[in-house]
Protein backbone atom coordinates (compact mmCIF):
# COMPACT_ATOMS: atom_id res chain seq x y z
CA UNK A 1 0.00 0.00 0.00
CA UNK A 2 1.33 3.40 -0.90
CA UNK A 3 0.14 6.94 -1.43
CA UNK A 4 -1.69 7.30 -4.69
CA UNK A 5 0.77 9.23 -6.81
CA UNK A 6 -1.73 9.83 -9.57
CA UNK A 7 -3.08 12.64 -7.40
CA UNK A 8 0.05 13.92 -5.73
CA UNK A 9 -0.80 17.56 -5.21
CA UNK A 10 -4.52 17.54 -5.70
CA UNK A 11 -6.09 19.76 -3.11
CA UNK A 12 -9.63 20.97 -2.68
CA UNK A 13 -9.58 24.19 -0.70
CA UNK A 14 -12.66 24.44 1.45
CA UNK A 15 -13.43 27.92 0.27
CA UNK A 16 -12.53 27.85 -3.39
CA UNK A 17 -13.97 30.97 -4.98
CA UNK A 18 -15.46 29.00 -7.83
CA UNK A 19 -18.04 26.28 -8.03
CA UNK A 20 -17.19 22.97 -9.71
CA UNK A 21 -18.82 24.31 -12.90
CA UNK A 22 -16.37 27.24 -12.95
CA UNK A 23 -18.89 29.91 -11.95
CA UNK A 24 -18.01 32.14 -9.05
CA UNK A 25 -19.88 31.05 -5.95
CA UNK A 26 -21.90 33.28 -3.61
CA UNK A 27 -20.16 35.59 -1.14
CA UNK A 28 -20.22 34.01 2.33
CA UNK A 29 -20.64 36.34 5.27
CA UNK A 30 -20.32 35.02 8.85
CA UNK A 31 -22.13 36.63 11.78
CA UNK A 32 -20.80 35.68 15.19
CA UNK A 33 -20.98 37.05 18.72
CA UNK A 34 -22.22 36.40 22.24
CA UNK A 35 -25.68 35.03 23.07
CA UNK A 36 -28.42 37.65 22.89
CA UNK A 37 -26.41 40.35 21.12
CA UNK A 38 -28.80 40.40 18.18
CA UNK A 39 -27.25 38.11 15.57
CA UNK A 40 -30.55 36.61 14.46
CA UNK A 41 -32.26 40.01 14.46
CA UNK A 42 -29.39 41.36 12.34
CA UNK A 43 -29.69 38.45 9.91
CA UNK A 44 -33.45 39.02 9.67
CA UNK A 45 -32.96 42.75 9.06
CA UNK A 46 -30.27 42.10 6.44
CA UNK A 47 -32.58 39.66 4.66
CA UNK A 48 -35.43 42.16 4.59
CA UNK A 49 -33.15 44.88 3.26
CA UNK A 50 -31.27 42.84 0.66
CA UNK A 51 -33.66 40.12 -0.49
CA UNK A 52 -35.27 42.15 -3.25
CA UNK A 53 -31.92 43.02 -4.84
CA UNK A 54 -29.97 39.77 -4.31
CA UNK A 55 -30.51 36.01 -4.25
CA UNK A 56 -29.99 35.20 -0.56
CA UNK A 57 -29.78 32.17 1.70
CA UNK A 58 -29.05 31.71 5.41
CA UNK A 59 -27.36 28.99 7.47
CA UNK A 60 -28.04 29.02 11.22
CA UNK A 61 -25.99 27.22 13.88
CA UNK A 62 -28.30 26.81 16.83
CA UNK A 63 -26.75 25.37 19.95
CA UNK A 64 -29.49 22.94 20.86
CA UNK A 65 -32.67 23.90 19.06
CA UNK A 66 -33.80 25.09 15.70
CA UNK A 67 -35.04 28.29 17.29
CA UNK A 68 -32.98 30.72 15.23
CA UNK A 69 -34.01 29.03 12.01
CA UNK A 70 -37.62 28.98 13.18
CA UNK A 71 -37.50 32.66 14.15
CA UNK A 72 -36.38 33.50 10.62
CA UNK A 73 -39.16 31.31 9.21
CA UNK A 74 -41.76 32.85 11.50
CA UNK A 75 -40.65 36.33 10.57
CA UNK A 76 -40.91 35.15 6.97
CA UNK A 77 -37.72 36.97 6.02
CA UNK A 78 -36.95 34.26 3.45
CA UNK A 79 -38.83 31.24 2.09
CA UNK A 80 -38.10 28.06 4.08
CA UNK A 81 -35.98 26.45 1.36
CA UNK A 82 -33.52 29.34 1.71
CA UNK A 83 -32.82 28.66 5.39
CA UNK A 84 -30.72 25.70 6.59
CA UNK A 85 -29.98 24.78 10.22
CA UNK A 86 -26.73 23.10 11.26
CA UNK A 87 -26.39 21.16 14.51
CA UNK A 88 -23.24 21.83 16.48
CA UNK A 89 -22.89 19.09 19.12
CA UNK A 90 -22.77 21.55 22.01
CA UNK A 91 -19.77 23.32 20.47
CA UNK A 92 -20.83 26.26 18.30
CA UNK A 93 -17.28 27.53 17.82
CA UNK A 94 -16.07 24.11 16.67
CA UNK A 95 -18.68 24.08 13.91
CA UNK A 96 -17.59 27.46 12.52
CA UNK A 97 -13.85 27.22 13.14
CA UNK A 98 -12.25 23.85 13.92
CA UNK A 99 -14.43 21.43 11.97
CA UNK A 100 -16.48 23.32 9.41
CA UNK A 101 -17.63 20.31 7.41
CA UNK A 102 -21.32 20.44 8.39
CA UNK A 103 -21.51 24.16 7.64
CA UNK A 104 -19.76 23.76 4.29
CA UNK A 105 -22.23 21.02 3.39
CA UNK A 106 -25.16 23.28 4.26
CA UNK A 107 -23.76 26.17 2.22
CA UNK A 108 -23.02 23.96 -0.77
CA UNK A 109 -26.46 22.38 -0.59
CA UNK A 110 -28.07 25.82 -0.69
CA UNK A 111 -25.84 26.85 -3.59
CA UNK A 112 -26.75 23.73 -5.54
CA UNK A 113 -30.49 23.84 -4.96
CA UNK A 114 -30.89 27.62 -5.29
CA UNK A 115 -28.32 28.33 -7.99
CA UNK A 116 -27.41 31.09 -8.68
CA UNK A 117 -27.05 32.66 -5.23
CA UNK A 118 -25.40 36.04 -4.61
CA UNK A 119 -25.00 35.91 -0.87
CA UNK A 120 -25.05 33.34 1.94
CA UNK A 121 -25.27 34.58 5.53
CA UNK A 122 -23.91 32.10 8.10
CA UNK A 123 -25.01 32.83 11.65
CA UNK A 124 -23.01 31.20 14.42
CA UNK A 125 -24.58 29.92 17.61
CA UNK A 126 -24.25 32.36 20.51
CA UNK A 127 -20.76 31.92 21.87
CA UNK A 128 -17.99 33.82 23.62
CA UNK A 129 -15.57 36.57 22.68
CA UNK A 130 -13.04 34.14 21.19
CA UNK A 131 -15.38 32.65 18.57
CA UNK A 132 -14.33 33.44 15.02
CA UNK A 133 -15.14 31.85 11.67
CA UNK A 134 -12.62 29.83 9.71
CA UNK A 135 -11.47 31.45 6.47
CA UNK A 136 -12.30 28.10 4.94
CA UNK A 137 -15.97 28.79 5.62
CA UNK A 138 -16.58 32.52 5.17
CA UNK A 139 -15.11 35.31 3.06
CA UNK A 140 -15.81 38.08 5.55
CA UNK A 141 -17.11 38.04 9.10
CA UNK A 142 -19.14 40.35 11.29
CA UNK A 143 -18.92 40.20 15.08
CA UNK A 144 -22.06 41.42 16.85
CA UNK A 145 -22.00 42.65 20.45
CA UNK A 146 -24.47 44.87 22.28
CA UNK A 147 -24.28 47.76 24.69
CA UNK A 148 -26.32 46.09 27.44
CA UNK A 149 -23.82 43.30 28.09
CA UNK A 150 -21.32 45.83 29.43
CA UNK A 151 -19.62 48.75 27.74
CA UNK A 152 -16.21 47.27 28.63
CA UNK A 153 -16.52 44.46 26.07
CA UNK A 154 -14.59 46.29 23.31
CA UNK A 155 -11.83 47.03 25.85
CA UNK A 156 -11.60 43.33 26.76
CA UNK A 157 -10.90 42.46 23.16
CA UNK A 158 -10.52 38.82 22.08
CA UNK A 159 -10.29 37.46 18.52
CA UNK A 160 -13.91 38.32 17.66
CA UNK A 161 -13.55 41.96 18.68
CA UNK A 162 -10.04 42.51 17.34
CA UNK A 163 -10.06 40.59 14.06
CA UNK A 164 -13.62 40.55 12.66
CA UNK A 165 -13.90 42.41 9.36
CA UNK A 166 -16.76 44.41 10.87
CA UNK A 167 -17.68 44.98 14.52
CA UNK A 168 -21.33 45.78 15.11
CA UNK A 169 -22.31 47.32 18.46
CA UNK A 170 -26.03 46.70 18.67
CA UNK A 171 -28.91 47.98 20.84
CA UNK A 172 -27.63 51.55 21.10
CA UNK A 173 -31.20 52.56 22.01
CA UNK A 174 -30.63 50.84 25.36
CA UNK A 175 -27.44 52.76 26.17
CA UNK A 176 -29.11 55.43 28.36
CA UNK A 177 -30.99 52.75 30.30
CA UNK A 178 -27.98 50.59 31.11
CA UNK A 179 -25.50 53.42 31.56
CA UNK A 180 -23.36 52.39 28.59
CA UNK A 181 -20.82 54.94 27.40
CA UNK A 182 -20.96 54.73 23.60
CA UNK A 183 -18.04 57.11 23.11
CA UNK A 184 -15.85 54.95 25.35
CA UNK A 185 -16.96 51.83 23.46
CA UNK A 186 -16.05 53.49 20.17
CA UNK A 187 -12.64 54.59 21.48
CA UNK A 188 -11.88 51.13 22.91
CA UNK A 189 -12.96 49.46 19.67
CA UNK A 190 -10.68 51.78 17.70
CA UNK A 191 -7.79 50.94 20.00
CA UNK A 192 -8.40 47.19 19.59
CA UNK A 193 -9.17 47.20 15.88
CA UNK A 194 -7.06 49.92 14.32
CA UNK A 195 -8.55 50.73 10.93
CA UNK A 196 -11.13 47.92 10.91
CA UNK A 197 -14.66 49.32 10.80
CA UNK A 198 -17.18 49.55 13.66
CA UNK A 199 -20.88 50.28 13.19
CA UNK A 200 -23.30 51.18 15.99
CA UNK A 201 -26.83 49.94 15.36
CA UNK A 202 -30.29 50.05 16.85
CA UNK A 203 -32.51 47.57 15.09
CA UNK A 204 -35.62 48.99 16.76
CA UNK A 205 -35.37 52.07 14.53
CA UNK A 206 -36.53 52.08 10.94
CA UNK A 207 -33.78 50.94 8.63
CA UNK A 208 -31.41 50.50 11.60
CA UNK A 209 -29.46 47.89 9.65
CA UNK A 210 -28.77 50.24 6.70
CA UNK A 211 -25.07 50.85 7.37
CA UNK A 212 -24.39 47.15 7.89
CA UNK A 213 -26.33 46.29 4.74
CA UNK A 214 -24.25 48.85 2.81
CA UNK A 215 -21.06 47.28 4.17
CA UNK A 216 -22.21 43.84 3.01
CA UNK A 217 -23.27 45.22 -0.37
CA UNK A 218 -19.84 46.83 -0.74
CA UNK A 219 -18.12 43.51 -0.22
CA UNK A 220 -20.52 41.83 -2.61
CA UNK A 221 -19.68 44.39 -5.28
CA UNK A 222 -15.95 43.79 -4.77
CA UNK A 223 -16.50 40.01 -4.87
CA UNK A 224 -18.27 40.31 -8.21
CA UNK A 225 -15.67 42.69 -9.60
CA UNK A 226 -12.99 40.10 -8.86
CA UNK A 227 -15.10 37.52 -10.65
CA UNK A 228 -15.28 39.74 -13.72
CA UNK A 229 -11.48 40.11 -13.95
Amino acid at each position, binding site marked *: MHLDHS*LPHQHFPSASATRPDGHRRALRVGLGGPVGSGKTASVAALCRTLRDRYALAVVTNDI*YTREDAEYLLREAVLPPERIAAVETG*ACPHTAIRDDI*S*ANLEAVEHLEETLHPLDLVLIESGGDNLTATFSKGLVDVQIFVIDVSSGDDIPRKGGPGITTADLLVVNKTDLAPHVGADLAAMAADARRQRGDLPVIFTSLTSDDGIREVADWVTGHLTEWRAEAAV
Partner: protein
Amino acid sequence: MSRAALLLLADGRFPAGGHAHSGGVEAAVARRAVHDTASLEAFCRGRLHTTGLTTAGLSAAAAAGHDALLLDDAADARTPAPALRAVSRRLGRQMTRAARATFPSAALERLAAHRPQGAHQPVVLGLTARAAGLTPVDAAHAAAYESAGGPATAAVRLLSLDPLDASRVLARLGVETDRVATAAADAAARVAAEGVDALPSASSPLLDITGEQHAAWTVRLFAS
Protein backbone atom coordinates in the same frame (compact mmCIF):
# COMPACT_ATOMS: atom_id res chain seq x y z
CA MET B 1 3.40 3.08 6.54
CA SER B 2 3.14 6.19 8.63
CA ARG B 3 2.16 5.59 12.24
CA ALA B 4 1.41 9.31 12.53
CA ALA B 5 -1.20 8.98 9.78
CA LEU B 6 -3.18 6.61 12.00
CA LEU B 7 -2.99 9.06 14.88
CA LEU B 8 -4.25 11.83 12.59
CA LEU B 9 -7.20 9.75 11.36
CA ALA B 10 -8.13 8.60 14.85
CA ASP B 11 -7.83 12.05 16.41
CA GLY B 12 -11.19 13.48 17.44
CA ARG B 13 -9.93 16.82 16.12
CA PHE B 14 -9.68 15.47 12.57
CA PRO B 15 -12.22 17.76 10.88
CA ALA B 16 -14.62 15.17 9.50
CA GLY B 17 -17.82 16.23 11.25
CA GLY B 18 -17.78 13.72 14.13
CA HIS B 19 -17.88 16.34 16.87
CA ALA B 20 -21.58 17.03 16.26
CA HIS B 21 -22.57 13.38 16.83
CA SER B 22 -22.94 11.55 20.14
CA GLY B 23 -23.03 7.95 18.91
CA GLY B 24 -26.41 7.48 20.53
CA VAL B 25 -25.35 8.60 23.99
CA GLU B 26 -27.57 11.71 23.96
CA ALA B 27 -30.66 9.51 23.68
CA ALA B 28 -29.27 7.18 26.34
CA VAL B 29 -28.65 10.11 28.68
CA ALA B 30 -32.22 11.30 28.16
CA ARG B 31 -33.49 7.84 29.21
CA ARG B 32 -31.11 7.98 32.22
CA ALA B 33 -29.55 4.78 30.91
CA VAL B 34 -26.24 6.65 30.96
CA HIS B 35 -25.90 8.87 34.02
CA ASP B 36 -22.44 8.32 35.48
CA THR B 37 -19.02 6.89 34.68
CA ALA B 38 -20.03 3.26 35.22
CA SER B 39 -23.07 3.47 32.98
CA LEU B 40 -21.02 5.34 30.35
CA GLU B 41 -18.49 2.51 30.39
CA ALA B 42 -21.25 -0.05 29.92
CA PHE B 43 -22.67 1.95 27.03
CA CYS B 44 -19.28 2.36 25.35
CA ARG B 45 -18.48 -1.32 25.79
CA GLY B 46 -21.79 -2.27 24.21
CA ARG B 47 -21.28 0.08 21.29
CA LEU B 48 -17.70 -1.10 20.78
CA HIS B 49 -18.76 -4.74 20.47
CA THR B 50 -21.72 -4.01 18.18
CA THR B 51 -21.45 -0.86 16.03
CA GLY B 52 -17.70 -0.76 16.64
CA LEU B 53 -17.06 -4.33 15.49
CA THR B 54 -19.28 -3.95 12.43
CA THR B 55 -17.83 -0.63 11.29
CA ALA B 56 -14.28 -1.84 11.99
CA GLY B 57 -14.87 -4.83 9.71
CA LEU B 58 -16.09 -2.58 6.90
CA SER B 59 -13.15 -0.20 7.35
CA ALA B 60 -10.64 -3.06 7.37
CA ALA B 61 -12.13 -4.56 4.20
CA ALA B 62 -12.03 -1.17 2.44
CA ALA B 63 -8.44 -0.68 3.57
CA ALA B 64 -7.60 -4.11 2.16
CA GLY B 65 -8.78 -2.91 -1.24
CA HIS B 66 -12.03 -4.84 -1.59
CA ASP B 67 -14.77 -3.41 -3.83
CA ALA B 68 -15.87 -0.24 -2.07
CA LEU B 69 -19.31 -0.19 -3.69
CA LEU B 70 -19.98 -3.73 -2.53
CA LEU B 71 -18.84 -2.74 0.95
CA ASP B 72 -21.11 0.29 0.82
CA ASP B 73 -24.04 -2.03 0.12
CA ALA B 74 -22.84 -4.29 2.94
CA ALA B 75 -22.88 -1.26 5.25
CA ASP B 76 -26.47 -0.53 4.21
CA ALA B 77 -27.46 -4.11 5.00
CA ARG B 78 -25.83 -3.78 8.44
CA THR B 79 -27.53 -0.46 9.26
CA PRO B 80 -31.26 -1.17 9.50
CA ALA B 81 -32.34 2.18 11.01
CA PRO B 82 -32.95 4.75 8.24
CA ALA B 83 -31.89 7.65 10.48
CA LEU B 84 -28.55 6.00 11.25
CA ARG B 85 -27.99 5.16 7.59
CA ALA B 86 -28.45 8.81 6.76
CA VAL B 87 -26.03 9.81 9.53
CA SER B 88 -23.44 7.30 8.32
CA ARG B 89 -23.65 8.64 4.76
CA ARG B 90 -23.53 12.24 5.92
CA LEU B 91 -20.41 11.52 7.98
CA GLY B 92 -19.02 9.67 4.97
CA ARG B 93 -19.48 12.80 2.84
CA GLN B 94 -17.77 14.92 5.44
CA MET B 95 -14.89 12.47 5.80
CA THR B 96 -14.52 12.42 2.00
CA ARG B 97 -13.96 16.18 2.11
CA ALA B 98 -11.30 15.81 4.80
CA ALA B 99 -9.70 12.85 3.01
CA ARG B 100 -9.43 14.79 -0.25
CA ALA B 101 -7.35 17.39 1.54
CA THR B 102 -5.22 14.93 3.51
CA PHE B 103 -4.91 11.58 1.69
CA PRO B 104 -6.45 11.94 -1.78
CA SER B 105 -6.81 8.81 -3.87
CA ALA B 106 -8.35 7.70 -7.14
CA ALA B 107 -10.24 4.96 -5.28
CA LEU B 108 -11.98 7.53 -3.09
CA GLU B 109 -12.85 9.67 -6.12
CA ARG B 110 -14.39 6.62 -7.80
CA LEU B 111 -16.51 5.88 -4.74
CA ALA B 112 -17.55 9.53 -4.42
CA ALA B 113 -18.56 9.60 -8.09
CA HIS B 114 -20.76 6.54 -7.62
CA ARG B 115 -22.21 7.74 -4.31
CA PRO B 116 -22.74 11.51 -4.75
CA GLN B 117 -24.97 11.59 -1.68
CA GLY B 118 -22.16 10.10 0.38
CA ALA B 119 -20.78 6.63 0.95
CA HIS B 120 -20.93 5.06 4.41
CA GLN B 121 -18.38 6.56 6.78
CA PRO B 122 -16.56 3.30 7.68
CA VAL B 123 -15.96 2.57 3.99
CA VAL B 124 -14.60 6.07 3.39
CA LEU B 125 -12.43 5.71 6.50
CA GLY B 126 -11.01 2.45 5.15
CA LEU B 127 -10.20 3.95 1.76
CA THR B 128 -8.60 6.94 3.44
CA ALA B 129 -6.48 4.66 5.62
CA ARG B 130 -5.41 2.75 2.50
CA ALA B 131 -4.44 5.97 0.76
CA ALA B 132 -2.44 6.92 3.85
CA GLY B 133 -0.50 3.67 3.54
CA LEU B 134 -2.14 2.10 6.59
CA THR B 135 -3.06 -1.56 7.02
CA PRO B 136 -6.55 -3.08 7.40
CA VAL B 137 -6.03 -3.60 11.12
CA ASP B 138 -5.04 0.07 11.45
CA ALA B 139 -8.30 1.12 9.79
CA ALA B 140 -10.18 -1.25 12.09
CA HIS B 141 -8.46 0.32 15.08
CA ALA B 142 -9.53 3.82 14.05
CA ALA B 143 -13.16 2.71 13.58
CA ALA B 144 -13.30 0.70 16.80
CA TYR B 145 -11.68 3.46 18.82
CA GLU B 146 -14.11 6.08 17.48
CA SER B 147 -17.11 3.88 18.30
CA ALA B 148 -16.37 4.35 22.01
CA GLY B 149 -14.46 7.63 21.87
CA GLY B 150 -17.34 9.54 20.26
CA PRO B 151 -19.92 8.74 22.95
CA ALA B 152 -17.37 9.26 25.74
CA THR B 153 -16.59 12.79 24.52
CA ALA B 154 -20.28 13.57 24.07
CA ALA B 155 -21.07 12.31 27.59
CA VAL B 156 -18.55 14.77 29.03
CA ARG B 157 -20.58 17.59 27.47
CA LEU B 158 -24.02 16.13 28.23
CA LEU B 159 -23.46 15.08 31.84
CA SER B 160 -20.67 17.48 32.83
CA LEU B 161 -18.81 14.26 33.56
CA ASP B 162 -15.22 14.59 34.76
CA PRO B 163 -13.16 14.36 31.54
CA LEU B 164 -10.54 12.36 33.43
CA ASP B 165 -13.18 9.74 34.23
CA ALA B 166 -14.23 9.59 30.58
CA SER B 167 -10.61 9.12 29.51
CA ARG B 168 -10.22 6.40 32.12
CA VAL B 169 -13.20 4.59 30.56
CA LEU B 170 -11.47 4.66 27.17
CA ALA B 171 -8.20 3.52 28.70
CA ARG B 172 -9.94 0.61 30.38
CA LEU B 173 -11.54 -0.36 27.05
CA GLY B 174 -8.14 -0.30 25.35
CA VAL B 175 -7.45 -4.04 25.32
CA GLU B 176 -11.02 -4.78 24.21
CA THR B 177 -10.69 -2.18 21.47
CA ASP B 178 -7.55 -3.95 20.24
CA ARG B 179 -9.37 -7.29 20.25
CA VAL B 180 -12.32 -5.87 18.33
CA ALA B 181 -9.96 -4.37 15.74
CA THR B 182 -8.09 -7.65 15.35
CA ALA B 183 -11.31 -9.66 15.02
CA ALA B 184 -12.58 -7.17 12.42
CA ALA B 185 -9.34 -7.35 10.43
CA ASP B 186 -9.38 -11.16 10.60
CA ALA B 187 -12.91 -11.17 9.20
CA ALA B 188 -11.85 -8.73 6.46
CA ALA B 189 -9.05 -11.13 5.54
CA ARG B 190 -11.68 -13.77 4.81
CA VAL B 191 -13.63 -11.54 2.40
CA ALA B 192 -11.53 -12.63 -0.59
CA ALA B 193 -12.57 -16.26 -0.07
CA GLU B 194 -16.01 -15.90 1.49
CA GLY B 195 -17.36 -12.56 0.25
CA VAL B 196 -18.69 -9.70 2.35
CA ASP B 197 -20.82 -12.09 4.39
CA ALA B 198 -17.60 -12.86 6.27
CA LEU B 199 -17.73 -9.36 7.77
CA PRO B 200 -19.22 -8.88 11.26
CA SER B 201 -22.87 -7.87 11.42
CA ALA B 202 -23.28 -7.27 15.15
CA SER B 203 -26.13 -4.89 15.81
CA SER B 204 -27.68 -3.08 18.73
CA PRO B 205 -31.46 -2.92 18.35
CA LEU B 206 -31.83 -0.43 21.20
CA LEU B 207 -29.36 1.97 19.55
CA ASP B 208 -31.33 1.58 16.31
CA ILE B 209 -34.64 2.35 18.02
CA THR B 210 -33.36 5.28 20.09
CA GLY B 211 -31.39 6.58 17.11
CA GLU B 212 -34.61 6.72 15.13
CA GLN B 213 -36.41 8.46 18.01
CA HIS B 214 -33.56 10.94 18.55
CA ALA B 215 -33.74 11.99 14.90
CA ALA B 216 -37.29 13.18 15.55
CA TRP B 217 -36.46 15.30 18.61
CA THR B 218 -36.90 19.03 18.07
CA VAL B 219 -34.50 20.02 20.86
CA ARG B 220 -31.12 18.30 20.99
CA LEU B 221 -27.43 19.10 21.30
CA PHE B 222 -26.12 16.49 18.89
CA ALA B 223 -27.10 15.61 15.35
CA SER B 224 -27.24 11.91 16.29
